């Protein structure tokens, strides 16, 4: 079956530093990949999505590139802010009808002053 792997459970860093959150996936279909962000006691919200190989997609200072050759969709930001402290989920939707999203376990990011 489909799966998403996020290797970091917790990332702690200082404001202004860069961050990269790893995401790899397995599917037999041509995938859509998503990053969702969940702030404390809030709903998960879409941050980025992509299905285009080797094309960088950006939103709110975050960016990611889908690499089908390595089945990866890592999330990056050049300079984190305190407001970036949240839970980040990588998710996969296979290119067929309505299976629902398959989520990774999530990476909690804590940014300190």
């Amino acid at each position: 079956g489909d799966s998403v792997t996020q290797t970091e459970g917790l990332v702690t860093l200082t404001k202004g530093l860069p961050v990269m959150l790893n995401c790899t996936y397995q599917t037999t279909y041509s995938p859509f990949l998503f990053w969702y962000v969940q702030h404390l006691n809030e709903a998960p919200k879409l941050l980025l999505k992509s299905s285009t190989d080797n094309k960088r997609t950006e939103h709110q200072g975050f960016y990611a590139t889908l690499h089908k050759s390595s089945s990866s969709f890592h999330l990056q930001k050049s300079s984190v802010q305190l407001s970036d402290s949240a839970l980040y989920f990588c998710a996969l939707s296979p290119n067929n009808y309505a299976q629902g999203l398959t989520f990774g376990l999530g990476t909690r990011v804590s940014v300190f002053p």
Partner: protein
Amino acid sequence: DMKVTQMPRYLIKRMGENVLLECGQDMSHETMYWYRQDPGLGLQLIYISYDVDSNSEGDIPKGYRVSRKKREHFSLILDSAKTNQTSVYFCASSFSGTSNTEVFFGKGTRLTVV
């Protein structure tokens, strides 16, 4: 204002009681979902609904059932709740069930079964 609304936000039930979690969306989305979120397990799909009375099991449907009688409402029912059903439950919706559609989530219902 596009949103998914879940009621109640917090719920405490005794083991063996029936539980009804309600969800509404104001976007006329065809597809709706129920997920549960547990520490270390991420978000797991319980049920998916493609439209009124068109429901399908997700990855962890055991112990749950759903009801969708109107497009904008999707209910999750726990018949005889168990302590291992203590979790945060998220309802979500999307315009269609195709791959590239953004999924909108509610704020969740924190259910504690004691």
